[in-house]
């Protein structure tokens, strides 16, 4: 689960990490007030969307007067912002964060994420913070493995602070920020906790100028209070609805809707469509059971996508028998009243009986002999 920068900074503050003073604004008027309230000559107006690359896309603007701050607010609020992470459709900016301007000496990068190979969270840090961080290879970054229970030990935090080039009291402050970031990561079951940039101010203070925190969805049951940070505006409505029915759905931009049991087979089905010259409209895993209710819900979600011109159902019936799955598909097709061609590929237990049920139904369903046949038929039907 992703959250906004202003929410990440609230969590940072709670951990005792210094962040710029700032106010969240939803209207142009609030932006102007915030600029005045922060009483500095300079403020920064930052679009709050769940995507990186805001700076380069014009989502972060510096204001030297109340009027200018309001101008920036007007240019951002309610508008669509496209960054390299949002895709061409962009995201609508509903909130901006107005922060005090600060005199920055140096910028660093610090982030904690789970390293799969080590099977443990790792702190990554670099003295080259800022917007170009993606171009720095991981191997070139400072790396410290977190202890699974103790987190980042004080000596590790100090070592990284010194290696970043921090000195004296600033090094001590930097180490404290890194240790706090590690505590936050472990305490809240994060999948990412990032400060980019972590800055050294001209007065020697160290501060988190930007923050990004993502939570492990599987651990949210331990943190019910985090649920209120969820922003439904930022989530795809169809994906959220699918999730509420225990369906795993990801919308793509092709024309062939897919319904498959199992994540690996679902990806493989997208791949084989692509292999035969088509384009998948979605990833959709209905799970092992493929009951009438779930299949019906899955069909509903697929046909709501206007790009869908054909549907490919690929089910490997292992434990659940193919005749039961066929009945599920038939029930769902009747309930949804499909208007696009449907290709079904069933394999596994009682497959003959399952195929026969589909054929005898009188419904316009093409039964495919195998995965290749299914993909070719679906690609043809979507043309």
């Amino acid at each position, binding site marked *: 689960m992703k959250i906004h920068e202003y929410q990440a900074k609230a969590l940072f503050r709670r951990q005792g990490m210094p962040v710029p003073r700032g106010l969240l604004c939803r209207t142009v008027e609030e932006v102007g007030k915030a600029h005045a309230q922060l009483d500095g000559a300079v403020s920064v107006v930052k679009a709050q969307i769940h995507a990186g690359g805001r700076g380069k896309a014009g989502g972060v603007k510096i204001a030297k007067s109340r009027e200018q701050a309001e101008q920036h607010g007007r240019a951002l609020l309610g508008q669509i912002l496209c960054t390299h*992470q949002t895709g061409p459709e962009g995201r609508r900016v509903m909130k901006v964060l107005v922060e005090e301007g600060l005199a920055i000496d140096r910028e660093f990068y610090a982030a904690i994420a*789970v390293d*799969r*190979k080590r*099977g*443990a*969270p790792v702190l990554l840090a670099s003295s080259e913070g800022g917007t170009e961080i*993606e171009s720095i290879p*991981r191997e070139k970054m400072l790396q410290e493995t977190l202890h*699974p*229970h103790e987190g980042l030990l004080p000596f590790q935090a100090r070592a990284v602070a010194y290696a970043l080039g921090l000195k004296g009291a600033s090094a001590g402050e930097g180490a404290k920020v890194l240790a706090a970031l590690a505590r936050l990561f*472990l305490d809240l*079951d994060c*999948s990412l906790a990032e400060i980019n940039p972590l800055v050294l101010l001209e007065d020697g203070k160290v501060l988190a100028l930007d923050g990004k925190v993502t939570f*492990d969805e*599987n*651990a949210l*049951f*331990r943190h019910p209070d985090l649920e209120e940070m969820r922003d439904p505006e930022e989530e795809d409505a169809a994906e959220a609805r699918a999730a509420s029915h225990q369906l*795993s759905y*990801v919308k*793509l931009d092709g024309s062939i809707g897919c319904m*498959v*049991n*199992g*994540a*690996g*087979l*679902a*990806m*493989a*089905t*997208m*791949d*084989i*469509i*692509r*292999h035969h010259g088509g384009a*998948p409209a979605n*990833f959709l*895993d209905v799970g*092992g059971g493929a009951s009438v209710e779930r299949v019906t819900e899955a069909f509903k979600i697929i046909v709501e996508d206007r790009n869908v011109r054909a549907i490919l159902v690929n089910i*490997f019936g*292992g*434990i659940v028998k193919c005749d039961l799955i066929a009945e599920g598909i038939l029930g769902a097709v009747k309930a949804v009243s499909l208007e696009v061609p449907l290709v079904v590929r069933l*394999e*596994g*237990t009682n497959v003959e009986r399952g195929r026969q049920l589909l054929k005898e139904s009188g419904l316009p369903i093409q039964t495919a002999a*195998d*995965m*290749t046949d299914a993909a070719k038929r679906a690609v043809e039907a979507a043309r």
Partner: protein
Amino acid sequence: MSVLVSKATRVVVQGLGEAGKFHARQCREYGTQVVAAVKPGAGGTAWEGIPIFDTVRAARKATGADCSLVFVPAPFAADAILEASEAGVPFVVTITEGIPTLDMVRVRAALDARGTLHLGPNCPGIISPGEAKIGIMPGYIHQPGPVGVVSRSGTLTYEAVWQLSARGIGQSTCIGIGGDPVQGFNFVDCLERFAKDPKTKGVVLIGEIGGSAEEDAAAWIAAHRPGKPVVSFIAGASAPPGKRMGHAGAIIAGGSGKAEDKKRALQEAGVVVVDSPAEIGAAMAAALGS
């Protein structure tokens, strides 16, 4: 001959809910020795002739169970795995999906320290056709034979096994390592065992986007030259970056974990990589010369 499990393996089932019961029954019907179940509070009773214990320690002491099959719900699964390890069970298979990643970080540290072997989580388990089935895969699609299968996926593995069996090519052992970012067995752990197993003549390796386990497998194959053909399919070539494709671990992040990079690494190590998931069986048949 088989890898890791055999007719002699004695299984304790942890988590006797609906799924646990259903699959415990299926495993037993396949011929697996299911010798005990653990359900706190139900110790001293029995289910379908299988004795139930309150703790894994008691189950192991009474039955000599040497493999645990874990179905315990995600919030409590880490504790169950640690319990099995602490009780001295040498091999734990975790089917449960949705375990918090940091739980698995802590589990892995503890199990590595104790030397407990762990398969999963979020995996279909392991089967040695004709020997034992310790997992949720449909037993009947398998047949004994020369091919080892290792995969991060469930149904896609069944698909590959189906293609093999349809050609009369049986399997020595099929291992599902699961789709989570932090897991027990990885590809290399399985490749090492298949390389040493004299009855395994070839290996099917099914990977997917996310992480670098396939690249690690490629590096291992290049360095050790096991002398057995490896056929591979990598799922997710058409997946967009930054989107999780069902499995917690199936995500292209920060430019790494792409299918094309994995395919290239495996090809450079001499692995036969097929672009279509429908070609896995045929490619293995060709590689074995059958």
